[in-house]
């Protein structure tokens, strides 16, 4: 077994070496980011197109290698490059001190402004963060905009809403789920192009730069890449690329001048109101700084799970009782519902509830989360309760009948209480499972424990410490539940299996 593992590891290692030696430049990015960054080529979906792809091609040509795209989720680009999944990451990756401390970062090649997008009708009243006190403002997680928004939460009382992608903030803004979106101007322009009812505000709320990232051990390669980027700034090839993608503006020549003048050009844009960025902090310090946010997120996880479980228990009971006592039509309908819910992914159900039903009913994220989790688990609960109801000895039901109890009284006084005790242990297991599955609701903008941890991990570029803290918090929530279940089972379970 061990030998097999060694062979596999050696195989992977030599494959990665082979990739370097065979003249391939692996560039990592998230094609879900879409144009102008990178997206699947409509004519050949196995290819990607975008300005990042063009720059990667430019660099590969300069290095005498062939570019090869590696798809990686946006928030995992940092750890993936450190692990060696690709040589250089380019996907609208923002420059920040944390990245510079951990990775080999190229010179910046594009400067962007963080701006607010609002509904056209609100353009006169929502101009700055101060106008948005108590309002929901959306952004993309693990970005500079998310950090700016977090400061605005403290300073101006806005309510940040963190999305996993940069499309839904704008669609949700259009339908009124949020009141503004803070993102870089490149994304904002695209958002406004796609939603005619939206408008960008001119106010500049901070600036940032796109960079390429490499593993620290590839510093030599990074230096060669920097040289190639500087050449492309000088001879206009970068300008040509950005012009082609409609992104060229007056900020870029100023940035290139600073980069070529030898300042690392890394941070601080001319004329920007960007507050001074923090110096890089240790993982432990960052984790400590995030602890209150993690506790808040853990509370959300707990409350969300409890309310969802209540809904699951209630809907599970209704379904189980309908399936045990109902007529043929009702039983068939309920069986169909249970199979539908159990046979499709919870994530899909959450998407349908939150985004899919948008045209008919605009559910708040937390409501959609509770409905999704509650109804999904309700289907599983119903199977447990149905089995538990059927496990109550039929003789007792006959005895209840000969005493004159109605069907409803028999259910309430005799069958239900015993079935509940049978169901208790599997139910608690499901509650623990639900507690963990609740992390899926981050996909519909609810920042719960896992999502908050992901934000922290993206911020410090490591999952190790955040992962440990997050695991400890989940355990602290689930272990008492498991103990409670065992105690209840001991106390209530006695004798009913006889």
């Amino acid at each position, binding site marked *: 077994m061990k030998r097999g593992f060694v062979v596999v590891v050696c195989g992977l290692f030599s494959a990665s070496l082979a990739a370097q030696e065979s003249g391939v430049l692996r560039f990592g990015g998230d094609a879900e980011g879409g144009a102008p960054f990178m997206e699947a080529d409509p004519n050949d979906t196995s290819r990607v197109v975008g300005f990042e792809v063009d720059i990667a091609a430019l660099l590969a040509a300069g290095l005498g290698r062939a570019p090869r795209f590696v798809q990686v989720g946006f928030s995992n680009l940092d750890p993936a490059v450190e692990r060696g999944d690709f040589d250089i990451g380019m996907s609208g990756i923002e420059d920040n001190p944390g990245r510079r401390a951990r990775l080999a970062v190229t010179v910046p090649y594009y400067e962007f402004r963080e701006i607010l997008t609002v509904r056209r009708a609100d353009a006169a009243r929502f101009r700055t963060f101060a106008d948005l006190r108590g309002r929901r403002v959306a952004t993309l997680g693990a970005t500079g905009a998310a950090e700016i928004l977090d400061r605005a939460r403290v300073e101006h009382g806005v309510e940040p809403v963190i999305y996993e992608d940069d499309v839904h903030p704008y669609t949700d803004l259009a339908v009124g789920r949020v009141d503004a979106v803070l993102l870089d101007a490149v994304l904002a322009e695209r958002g406004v192009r796609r939603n005619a009812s939206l408008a960008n505000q001119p106010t500049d709320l901070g600036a940032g730069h796109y960079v390429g990232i490499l593993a620290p051990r590839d510093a030599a390669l990074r230096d060669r890449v920097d040289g190639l980027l500087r050449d492309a700034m000088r001879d206009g090839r970068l300008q040509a690329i950005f012009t082609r993608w409609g992104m060229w503006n007056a900020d870029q020549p100023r940035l290139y001048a600073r980069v070529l003048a030898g300042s690392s050009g890394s941070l601080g844009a001319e004329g920007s109101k960007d507050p001074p960025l923090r110096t890089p902090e240790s993982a432990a310090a960052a984790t400590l700084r995030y602890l209150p946010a993690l506790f808040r997120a853990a509370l959300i996880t707990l409350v969300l799970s409890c309310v969802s479980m209540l809904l699951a228990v209630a809907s599970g009971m209704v379904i189980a009782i309908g399936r045990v006592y109902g007529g043929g039509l009702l039983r068939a309908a309920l069986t169909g519902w249970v199979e539908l819910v159990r046979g499709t992914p919870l994530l899909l159900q959450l998407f349908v509830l939150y985004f899919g039903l948008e045209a008919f009913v605009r559910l708040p994220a937390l409501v959609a989360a509770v409905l999704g989790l509650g109804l999904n688990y309700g289907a599983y609960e119903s199977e447990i309760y149905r089995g538990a109801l059927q496990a109550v*000895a039929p*003789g*007792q039901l*006959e*005895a*209840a*009948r*000969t*005493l*004159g*109890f*109605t*069907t409803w*009284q028999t259910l309430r*006084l*005799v069958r239900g*209480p*015993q079935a509940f*005790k049978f169901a208790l242990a599997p139910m608690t297991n499901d509650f623990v499972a639900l507690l963990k599955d609740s992390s899926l609701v981050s996909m519909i903008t609810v920042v719960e424990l896992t999502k908050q941890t992901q934000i922290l991990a993206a911020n410090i570029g490591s999952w190790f410490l955040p992962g440990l803290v997050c695991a400890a918090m989940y355990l602290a929530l689930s272990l008492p539940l498991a103990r409670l279940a065992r105690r209840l089972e001991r106390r209530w379970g*006695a*004798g*009913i299996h*006889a």
Partner: protein
Amino acid sequence: MSALAVRDLRVARGERVVVHQVSFDAQPGELLALMGASGSGKTTILRAIAGLEPMAAGTIETGGVRLGPGPLPHGAALRALHARIGMVFQFHNLFAHLTAVHNVWLAPVHVRGEARASAERTARRLLDELGVGGRAEARPHELSGGEAQRVAIARALAMDPPVLLLDEPTASLDPERRAELARTVRTLVEGGRTVLAATHDADFVRGCADRVLLLEAGRIAREGSAGPGE
């Protein structure tokens, strides 16, 4: 007027007829024993009278309540039937999640709407009278067969039915307890109740039954008064 009148009772399970045209009456203050080998139809007759088994033909009448072929009684008809008839099952069928005394007062409170305190007093008195007052707080799984049998009788008696059906009442008892049970049942009968007992136990029948119906393959083969030599 008889307390219970069974006329031409026929019960079928699918194609198989398990009770053929059985007719009998039972009077107030009478203990009628149904005897016969296993499978002779004793328990099925009791279940049909208790409204647990659908009838293929015939009628069962008790105190103005009449059962016939068709779906099992429910709602008001079921309540009317069980105001007249109580049943004690062979395996007691006590409610497993409740104490003995709770088993006894549950129906008076929820079916008849009695106050909980008075129903519980009656329940404790019944358990005392049946010799299991000391086990009032025990759960069914903590009771011996004999104790569970008595609690089940108390549960049926708490609804004060004029007709009591006992299915194999002595099956879970040792000989000493059987004699005790026979005395208890006799007291009930002498108090004016009608008791119909399905049993294998010849000693029990000799000890307390007034009349015996001997069943063979779902038919009444013989009828006679009980007592030595029967």
